[in-house]
């Protein structure tokens, strides 16, 4: 039985390889190659990969340990959902998922209408060259359907830290984001080949780039949320190399979506948009595969194999070399000089583009520096999180300012003082609130105060801009997506700064019956009990949180002991309130009498997630609205 599945699935991979090869040849404009049509071949690509992915899921669900991948990453006693998510909790499976999304985007684009035949052919061909490369890599170098000769009775199991519902959906969401940029890349290459990067090109690209960006944002947010409650360190962002690897394409993509908008509205910045599209996709590849290659050492790394890193590096190098030489060759022909006012919305967006690239450089240097010294000087070191916060914070202040002012400017030269007079009430309100906040909370750090002030400006300005009344006093919604996302970003920044300043932490050794204090709360340690579950045993502590003698909530931090593979995890117990989270983690008892418990007050966490959610929804709205509404000239 297993042998049949082995043959069928490998046949499917070969089928996809063949179809992709035929599809790739469409790059040559000749009748021999352009038939059969894009949709037929794209369907073959999609169906073959979809079937092999379903087969892999089936193998995990029935726990067929004749397959290496299932043996190493699954266990018969694992709950069903984790057998399922175990499919992409490893290198080969996640690679297959990556390819599945790649062919899915290819197929969806092949279906799209109102695009010239030739442009579509070239885009799909470029996309298919990549599909070919990755399927070949999967087939020859990391085949998920490799059989073993032993009759294993049971599998090794999935790392328990990954056994989490959130982590089951985190990789697929993140991958849709990363892979979405592959299509944007293909569109950029097609634009370069046809020498047409214009307003029409921008309107074709817009929905794809916005949805990829929204998914990437959601993927990063899910990973951060997971780290917050599963790692048990009370933080949500650690400037860990793997987190940075996903942040870098996000920063580039954020610059890209704004350039696509300017291109669509004003037909300027063609070259820069193309460079950003190439950069974003290259960084997405780095994001996916540097993590998997084991080059980066991090809490998030699993299933690493340095040998495969080489292929990916080579692939990234080829993509960069090819696309930049094409760019150098054709860039003169795509640039059209049209004017843009000096003090205008375009300039503001351009300046923020530069700031984003600066932030990207900061993150890149911080992430790569330890790698470089390790490889070149054989010296291990880490870059402390303070590097990122102190270097990026001043840039964020400027960035927030331009984010606030740019949408208020027109596309043509605008008088800055007129705008400032127009916005005087808004500025005064924000200034007052900032003053109150900084006096009340005794906040005297200039950087923090300025971030809060400009965030407030941005939030209020974006929110009021989305509520507009026309002459008949009817509510009209203008640029809802943009305003929602911008306000969300302001909220995120404000929450992040306040959170960093006002977090509090206490560590206690506690015995049953103890009363522990944190700020105005009293925690009484009620009892500790052992719990047996199908895939782990756990030690669960019960704390009653009281304020002024009244019971508010019961906390149950937990330590889980997994046996397949043997691992211990701490499960935090969190009370989410609107203005602050209360967060409890316990650790393995040092002796029989007491346990160690760490308590955190994390202010504004709910608001921080809310801001992130607004950014994601804003992105989705912008992706689904075909033409931007701001057409003032």
């Amino acid at each position, binding site marked *: 039985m297993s042998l049949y599945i082995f043959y069928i699935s490998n046949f499917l991979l070969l089928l996809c390889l063949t179809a992709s090869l035929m599809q790739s040849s469409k790059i040559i404009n000749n009748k021999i190659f352009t038939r059969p049509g894009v949709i037929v071949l794209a369907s073959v690509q999609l169906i073959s990969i979809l079937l092999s992915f379903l087969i892999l899921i089936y193998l995990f669900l029935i726990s067929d340990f004749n397959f290496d991948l299932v043996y190493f990453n699954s266990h018969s006693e694992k709950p069903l959902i984790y057998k399922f998510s175990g499919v992409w909790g490893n290198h080969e499976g996640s690679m297959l998922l990556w390819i599945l999304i790649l062919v899915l985007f290819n197929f969806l684009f092949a279906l799209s209408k109102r695009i010239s035949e030739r442009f579509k052919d070239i885009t799909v061909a470029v996309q298919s060259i990549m599909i070919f490369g990755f399927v070949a890599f999967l087939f020859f170098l990391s085949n998920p359907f490799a059989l073993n000769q032993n009759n294993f009775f049971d599998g090794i199991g999935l790392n328990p830290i990954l056994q989490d519902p959130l982590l089951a959906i985190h990789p697929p969401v993140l991958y849709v984001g990363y892979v979405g940029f592959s299509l944007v890349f293909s569109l950029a290459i097609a634009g370069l080949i046809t020498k047409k990067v214009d307003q029409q090109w921008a309107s074709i690209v817009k929905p794809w780039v916005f949805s990829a960006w929204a998914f990437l944002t959601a993927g990063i947010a899910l990973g951060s949320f997971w780290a917050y409650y599963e790692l048990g*360190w009370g933080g949500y962002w650690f400037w860990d190399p793997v987190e940075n690897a996903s942040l870098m394409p996000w920063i580039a993509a954020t610059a890209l979506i704004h350039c696509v908008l300017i291109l669509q509205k004003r037909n300027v910045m063609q070259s820069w948009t193309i460079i950003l599209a190439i950069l974003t996709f290259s960084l997405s590849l780095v994001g996916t595969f540097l993590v998997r290659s084991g080059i980066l*050492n991090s809490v998030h790394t699993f299933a690493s194999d340095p040998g495969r890193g080489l292929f990916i590096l080579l692939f990234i190098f080829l993509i960069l070399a090819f696309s930049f030489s094409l760019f150098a060759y054709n860039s003169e022909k795509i640039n059209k000089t049209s004017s843009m006012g000096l003090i205008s919305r375009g300039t503001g967006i351009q300046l923020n583009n530069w700031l984003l690239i600066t932030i990207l450089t900061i993150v890149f*240097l911080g992430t790569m520096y330890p790698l470089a010294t390790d490889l070149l000087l054989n010296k291990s*070191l880490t870059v*402390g999180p303070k*590097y990122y916060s102190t270097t990026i914070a001043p840039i964020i202040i400027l960035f927030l300012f331009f984010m606030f002012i740019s949408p208020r400017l027109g596309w043509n030269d605008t008088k800055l003082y007129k705008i400032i007079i127009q916005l005087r009430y808004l500025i005064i309100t924000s200034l007052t609130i900032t003053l109150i906040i900084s006096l009340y909370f005794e906040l005297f750090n200039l950087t923090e105060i300025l971030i809060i002030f400009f965030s407030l400006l941005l939030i209020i300005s974006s929110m009021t801009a989305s509520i507009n009344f026309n002459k008949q006093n009817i509510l009209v919604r203008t640029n809802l997506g943009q305003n929602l996302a911008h306000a969300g970003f302001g909220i995120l920044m404000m929450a992040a700064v306040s959170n960093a300043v006002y977090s509090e932490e206490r560590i206690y050794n506690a015995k049953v019956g103890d009363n522990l204090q944190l700020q105005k709360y009293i925690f009484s340690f009620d009892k500790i009990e052992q719990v047996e579950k199908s895939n782990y045993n756990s030690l669960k502590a019960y704390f009653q949180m009281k304020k002024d003698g009244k019971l508010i909530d019961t906390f149950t931090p937990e330590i889980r002991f997994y046996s397949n593979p043997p691992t211990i995890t*701490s499960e935090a117990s969190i009370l989410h309130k609107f203005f602050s989270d209360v967060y409890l983690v316990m650790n393995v008892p*040092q002796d029989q009498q007491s346990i*160690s418990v760490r308590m955190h007050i994390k202010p504004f966490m709910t608001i921080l997630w809310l801001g992130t959610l607004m950014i994601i929804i804003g992105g989705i709205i912008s992706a689904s609205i075909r033409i931007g509404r701001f057409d003032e000239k």
Partner: protein
Amino acid sequence: MTSLVKSRLIKFLLSLIIVLIAVLIIIFNLKDNIIYFYGPTELLKNSDKQGQIMRLGGLVSVDSVQNETDSIFYFNITDGDNEIEVKYEGILPNLFAEDKGVVVEGVYMNDGRFIANKVLAKHDENYMPPEVIETLKKSGKWQGE
């Protein structure tokens, strides 16, 4: 040179200078925030590093863990050749155990003791920080692949 080329050249040089300045600022900031990693033998050789924040890694020596009170711990970190005594106040991570790999962050004091303010938590029992493997390989005590 035509005026177009000239103005482009000026723009290019100007942005190059700005970028260079920005990169320099970034790198200086980076230098200030670097945390080096040492094994015990390496650290003893570099006694001039006293007083700096750094990471120290190796194996927790057998029978070396003692606690003064509920939350102040003493233990030795070894690479097989040399040992350094570590003092740590706080919660030890779940997977902290004798004869297992550990990485601590803190300051190497001039009395030869390491005051740790962080014991880095790792989640997999079999996981060994790459730096620790490197340290053990250097001292010839590494027994893995």
